[in-house]
């Protein structure tokens, strides 16, 4: 295992079996069924923003058929940064080709870090020095409360702070730091946003789970998703390996691990492919993946606050990597049961995903995608949009406040208060 420090995936676990990345890319038959469901193609209908174009570009890159010059690199980075990684294309694709996974791999091979350097370094601290990260976040939130934070945005390299200021809720909330229970029966791994930005969300999830289980919370714990999406694979693998070991040492080693973010959930479900080539670790990772649960798993049949939301409601699919993940299907079923006719079901062919959370795209593309998503919501006269990750809820809510204030975005866990 120690030797596996490569920044490349050895193989992909696709719905149709384990394949090398190149094999997987070559399965694209160029039929174009993916394009109409792609949010980026809906906003800018051209080949460079279509999943087919992305796959073909990656294939040419892998085959060495594109010259290695600055202009090509720039164009390729543009091409991959326009992908929201939502995975809708895989569902529409006859061969179920995981284009989002290809794009992540393409990012790594191009060494394209999409985040501003300062943000990247800041977020990486969570893994290297969690205490420093926590202290930094607390300082940031305090600066936000005293309305000084926006001024940091004028510093070179800190432009992203303005966007963060728009996302942060104005009211003061204590970070979510509950006491651990002894002899736990369930583990809760709060996402970054749930722990620091939306602690009431984390508390809601915790309280709901605690009604039936003894919950142990893995506080301020990196999931490896950030490194997987923006950093290098070796680091992501190291974090996940740590989580697998920690999981095996908690309780009987078989405890369900609860996540409030579908992005983290989908990532955890796919961790076995990180260890491809190391059968023992693949097995361990598979066991870990099998133990991962989404917050819908603990939601009661009749959540307390379900009646409080303005109708009709809608579920926005902004999940990373897998549009048809079991958690998403489960969430859809819950909403359908609760709201019946007031739940607007939108076929997956409607390209309405918004680049939220980890589906980060370059600033130049994001507004067009947001508008496309808001247009879909306005078309259906939606009042409440449920999303499955806190960060996505914040991002989408911001877009709605700007373009369609009649609607609100909420995390699905809010159904229970």
């Amino acid at each position, binding site marked *: 295992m120690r030797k596996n420090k490569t920044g490349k995936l050895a193989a992909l676990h696709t719905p*149709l079996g384990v394949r090398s990345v190149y*094999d997987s890319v*070559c*399965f694209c*038959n*160029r*039929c*174009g*069924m993916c*394009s*109409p469901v792609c949010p980026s193609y809906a906003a800018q*209908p*051209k*080949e*460079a923003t279509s999943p087919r*174009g992305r796959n*073909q*570009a990656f294939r*040419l890159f892998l085959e060495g*058929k*594109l*010259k290695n010059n600055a*202009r*090509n690199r720039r*164009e*390729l980075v543009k*091409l991959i940064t326009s992908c929201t990684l939502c995975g809708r294309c895989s569902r*529409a694709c*006859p*061969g*179920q080709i995981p284009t989002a996974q290809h794009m992540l791999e393409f990012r790594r091979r191009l060494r394209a870090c999409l985040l501003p350097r300062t943000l990247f370094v800041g977020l990486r601290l969570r893994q290297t020095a969690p205490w420093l990260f926590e202290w930094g976040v607390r300082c940031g939130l305090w600066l936000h409360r005293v309305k000084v934070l926006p001024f940091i945005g004028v510093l070179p390299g800190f432009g992203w702070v303005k966007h963060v200021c728009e996302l942060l809720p104005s009211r003061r909330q204590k970070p979510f730091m509950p006491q651990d229970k002894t002899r736990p029966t369930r583990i809760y791994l709060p996402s970054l946003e749930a722990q620091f930005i939306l602690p009431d969300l984390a508390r809601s999830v915790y309280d709901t789970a605690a009604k039936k289980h003894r919950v142990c919370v893995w506080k301020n714990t990196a999931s490896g998703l950030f490194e997987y999406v923006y950093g290098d694979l070796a680091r992501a693998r190291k974090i996940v390996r740590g989580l697998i070991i920690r999981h095996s040492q908690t309780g009987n080693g078989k405890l369900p691990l609860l996540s409030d973010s579908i992005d983290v959930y989908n990532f955890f479900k796919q961790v076995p492919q990180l260890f491809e080539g190391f059968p023992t670790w693949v097995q361990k990772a598979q066991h870990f993946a099998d133990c991962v649960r989404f917050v819908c798993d603990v939601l009661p049949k009749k959540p307390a606050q379900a009646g409080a939301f303005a109708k009709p409601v809608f579920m926005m699919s902004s999940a990373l990597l897998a549009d048809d993940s079991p958690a998403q299907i489960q969430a859809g079923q819950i909403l359908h049961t609760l709201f019946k006719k007031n739940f607007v079901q939108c076929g997956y*062919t409607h390209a309405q995903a918004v680049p939220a959370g980890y589906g980060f795209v370059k600033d130049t593309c994001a507004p067009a995608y947001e508008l496309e998503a808001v247009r879909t919501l306005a078309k259906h006269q939606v009042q409440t949009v449920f999303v499955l990750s806190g960060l996505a809820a914040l991002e989408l809510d911001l877009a709605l406040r700007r373009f369609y204030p009649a609607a609100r975005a909420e995390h699905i866990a809010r159904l229970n208060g």
Partner: protein
Amino acid sequence: MKLTPQVIQELSRLVGIENVRTDEVSLSLYAYDCSLSRTRPDGVVLITCAAQVAPVLRVLAKHSIPFVPRASATNHAGSCSALKGGVILNLTALNRILQINTREGFAVVEPGVITGDLQAALAPLGYFYAPDPASTQACTLGGNLAQNASGARCMKYGGTLDHVLAVQGVLPDGEEVFLSRTQMGPDWVGLLAGSEGTLGVITQLTVRILPVAKHIQTFLVTFPSLQDSVEAVSDLAACGVVPRCVEAMDKTTLQAVEEFAHAGYPTQAEALLILELDGTPAQIKKEQRVLEEICRAHQALHFSFAKTKEEREELWRGRRSAFAAMARLAPNVLVGDGTVPRSRLPQTLQRVQQILKENNLCAGLLFHAGDGNFHPHLLFDERNKLQTRLAARALQEVLKACVEQQGTLSGEHGVGVEKRAVMAYQYDVDTLGVMQKIKHALDPKNLANPLKILPCRFSEKARVAHPLLPQVEVLRQQMLAWKKEKIAFQIAGSNSRLKTKHVHVLSSVSLNQIVEIDKANYTVTAQAGVHLNVLAAALKKAGVYSLLPAGEGTLGGLFCSGVLPQFYAHVLGVEALLPDGTYARYGGKVMKNAAGYPLTRLWAGSQGKLGLVTQLTFKVFAAAPKVPAPRAFVAMVPNLIQTRLLQAWGGKV
């Protein structure tokens, strides 16, 4: 040929600098479509508004730069590759539905509208657009017309060709044209169908929309052999039952689909049919009885029908996932598209299986049994050069086998570059020459999608033409003699509508034979000079019915006078003597034909201006259809396209 900075500057001025791409990555992304063909263009122009097309084409014509119009590029023929370099015009941004008029039954759309999007917009209004290619969710309406695409519903409703009412387009020199089916003269809209962007760029379409049938019944039938299934469909048509669609698949595909989609299909059968009947409940019930009897007579192993909407969806889910089921078996799927007369389907499929075996290839067979159109899905890995060559060769052999069975190399996918070579196997020099003249007349600089459809140096490779009939030869000699002496003459039938007082009239009345009434395929082949009354009597005697009214005039006269445009869609094959003395033979008994320009539409309503039609093959039915009344004869006013075509043929007839 690299685009010069001047050209880039001129184009940028028209469409914006961000919409003119010449970087390597962009060029590579417009080098392919869904076929094996890959050629990098020299530039890509992203069209964002229909008004930009004409000025852009004028700039390209000024600098003699070839161009290829392209939308979703989902075709299987290599129609979108820039073989001579030049510029790709990306039209996907022209994706607005401009008008839906349910009262008049039409929709006005831009060419980049995805067919599925139009269907989705029409569904809440209770309407639908009849052509339904398998790639409905991805292909565009402009692309459908350019390739003359059709789909499962073609048997009853026809292909794209029959559902486009008007087209706005731009000729390769930047001249804007508006072509409508209400105009007298040849069916120019029909001629554009299947032109694959070689005659210009489509910028707007008016398509026919139809009310959704309230009652649809879907059936699933399995047979012990492919032959039984095809014969059952033929017998069904012979009994006057025209299903809304008839989809079929062989055992290989059936098993792949069942493994993939779990649609509940019986996997023991050798062939499976999915049929749909629509109409009134009483009509469906009556037709269902006939269908069941026929299927039982052909040893049907399983006969069931969907009782609920969900069951119907479930039956279709399997068929729709057939491509997916095949696509997961190998990295690449080469989809063929041969069409033969329905009665020839069993022996053709046998030959296809033999070809696949000889080339050691695995393939699934899907076919629209109703119109003799089949799609072998050849599985291969593009990275394996030998396998790719084998697949390409096998496909060519399959298409040649279709031609040998009086079929055509393409029913709905078009020719592009992949089937170009087989065109020489299907058509003789004169027929290919007509197509070349059409192309040359409208695109003298050969800028619009060059090197497509027509095979290179076809004069050396084209099939040997059958000798002309003596009566046709006489007419030809007469025509050439008048031309030599520079005597103006008029082409006519029995002159019942044209009523010309011209001294020199070249008449088709000497061609008065009914060549064949084929009850297996439900087609009739008759010479153009056959009197309509005689034809009606002969058809009645044979127990078949056509759309033609009995009365004065000849068959050719009725077809060329333009008084019965509803008949155009029923004409499957045509033979004609051209003003330059060449003799073209196009089509035959095949229900659909996307191989080359649809020449039947060139002479339809041409009023003798573009040559003398000598023979027609057209559809007939077991039950009498509602015969429309012919409209009054109005002499046509030549438009831009016709003027150019006449010039190409060497002047006025």
